[in-house]
């Protein structure tokens, strides 16, 4: 591998143009595989209550995206509805109004919860 970098460069240029021009197209990103599990010989390992220094990262991109996206949606909803009148359809009833504004807050709360649980 690594033998065809110039061609890959050309492919990259084509792909970059594509993702710029076509709305909604996103480059594929690799992620993690599901966490693997293998049992101990003769049966499952027994968790102990000992404190341990567990390897953690402070970066939680998905959770942070939920927080940021939720708050942004909430702010956009308030400004868009009450300043620009973009979301007049949601003002039809108190229920739809509340659901509309609360949706962003719920998404942000989910993000906060994920950050808190995994920290």
């Amino acid at each position, binding site marked *: 591998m690594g033998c065809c970098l110039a061609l890959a460069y050309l492919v990259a240029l084509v792909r970059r143009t594509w993702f710029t021009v076509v709305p909604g197209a996103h480059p*594929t990103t690799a992620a993690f595989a599901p966490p693997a599990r293998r049992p101990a010989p003769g049966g499952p*390992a027994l*968790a102990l209550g000992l404190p341990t220094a567990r390897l953690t990262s402070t970066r939680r991109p998905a959770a942070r995206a939920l927080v940021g996206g939720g708050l942004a949606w909430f702010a956009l909803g308030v400004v868009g509805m009450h300043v620009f009148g973009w979301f007049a359809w949601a003002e039809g009833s108190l229920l739809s109004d509340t659901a509309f504004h609360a949706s962003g807050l719920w998404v942000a709360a989910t993000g906060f919860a994920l950050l808190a649980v995994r920290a």
Partner: protein
Amino acid sequence: MTIPATDERVQLLLPSPTRAVPPTTARRQRRAILTYSALWALGALPGLLDLGTAWTATGLGLVLPGGGLAYGGHPVLALLAVAAVVLSVFTWWATGPTVLPPLMWLGSAVLGGLVADPGATATQVVVLSLGPALIVTAVGVHRLRHVRQARTGARLNERLRDVEFVITGPPGLDVRVPVTEHSAQDLAHLRYALDLALQPIDSFVGFTKIDQFREAATRYQLNALGYSLSMAQFTRTPAFTGYLAEGQRNAIEKMLDRRIWGYWAVENAWGNLDLDRDPVDNSENIMLTGFHGLMVGMYETLNDDRFSRPGALTYRWNDDVGYVNDYGSLAASIHRNVQRSPYALFPCEPNWIYTVCNTFGMNTMVSHDRLHGTGYFPAVEARLRDSYETEFLRPDGRIIGVRSSHLGLSWNLWAGPSIQLTTSYWMHAALPDIAQRTWWLLREQELRTEGDTVATRPGVSARLDPGNYQLGTDTYSQVVTLMAGREVGDEDLAAQVQRGLDEREEVTEADGAWRYANASGLANLYANLGRFGRRSGLRDLVTFGTPEAWRRGPVLAEVAYPDVLVAKAVTDGVALDLVLRPGAGPVRTVLLVERLVPGREYAVTGAAQSTYVADADGTAAIEIDLGGRQEVRIAPR
């Protein structure tokens, strides 16, 4: 292949070329020019014989793509025809459909004949002149460049006369620090690879999925996965098989999935007009046989020979059709193809010979020779070396990355630093002197230390991640610099690159596994290969294998994952030393140790009991409480 008993110092100057075009390439290029000459003559005839506008335009279309359309008064269509032919050559290069450029060329010629209006004689003369003029210009430019490169080569040779390269001999237990301990950070990056490898064989969650033809193809990710796990075992935990060996096996077996190797059926059909789907019994496809063979060679060196058994590597097309192979048949096919190829090196995609791909073929032969006593590599080494030094080397020492086997053509774009870096790494096992000279040239000309960072000269490939075709990041470039620097023994530079990656790259985490967030899966897996490498790590693993003590001493054969992360596991032939860390919190668990002396009593430190007696089958189940970094030693009493 001459294997030094100890480290040796050698000199290797750049060869002084006696001609502007090396012999095999020259023959191919002469053949291509003669073929074009015949086509030119055929295309010129209708005009010379005054056969009418349509035939004249068709003929001129054969002489030059779009020539007939230009002659027939359709300049825009002529430009489109040129663009279409260029695009078809690009597609041919990318995925191998050899028929596409001739079809596009012929199609534009026919179109020119169909739509032609009476054209001017001046246009006819221009079209007839342009093809030969382009060839003469290309030859002239090549000769000028060759002279300049030869001057550079001569200058470099003045300096190379004072340089000695160290060709490392077989490692011992006490040389080159064969086994080191994974840091917590190393283990987190290893877990990314283990989670990928330990999912079910038919599952590919977490792999980049864009295409199965080029650099982002899943097979290359599987190759990198296998190599990086093998290198982790070799340099950190040679006395641990367990889930680490299982991960390597899974990567090897995933390669047998039709979704992974089935691209060959398509490429062989449109590239060679051959409907045979067999991915091994053919004269090309080293991008599968060489890469897959090396995965198996590494696995067998460290673990067992299951993939050398008949039928162990069966590439299954469907329930009825499978291509039965094993490690031996892969190595034999590579050897056969090298013997048959006029270049010695042979193609990946139909027609396209890549120098890096062929290093994997060499590594497969070298490891197979060592493990099974065959003599594949020595039989072809001289031809391969000669070809690397003549047909695929510029006079200024740059390795030529690709050449068309049909036409003999290459292009300069293909000699950038990334090509040199990857070739330098993968060539170090079989042709270490050329690999080290390539690295020396990189250090002299390409690699720049700026503050605490190491960078290659800016170029088309320096900011590309080929694993997902994304531009704008030099992570991959850094990764291959790390791999090569560490392998050839430039540890100071390699450590600097590793620090740079760890400090600057954003890391993302899932269930204790870490990966560089803005890099492809391929880049992450090769980053692991570099991280777990050491001086001559690849060379030792491929060329020399493991010490006898590692092959007969006790091993940690089974342990829970991710509860127990193995940071170090090594044996001196009788005792087993482990360093373990918890991967999912404190745990009471069991280690299964194999290859003990049956019935013998062992003293154990770091476990629940201080003595164990090995069972009749040489095993012992040892209970431990694991709350943090813990050393365990099992030694005969």
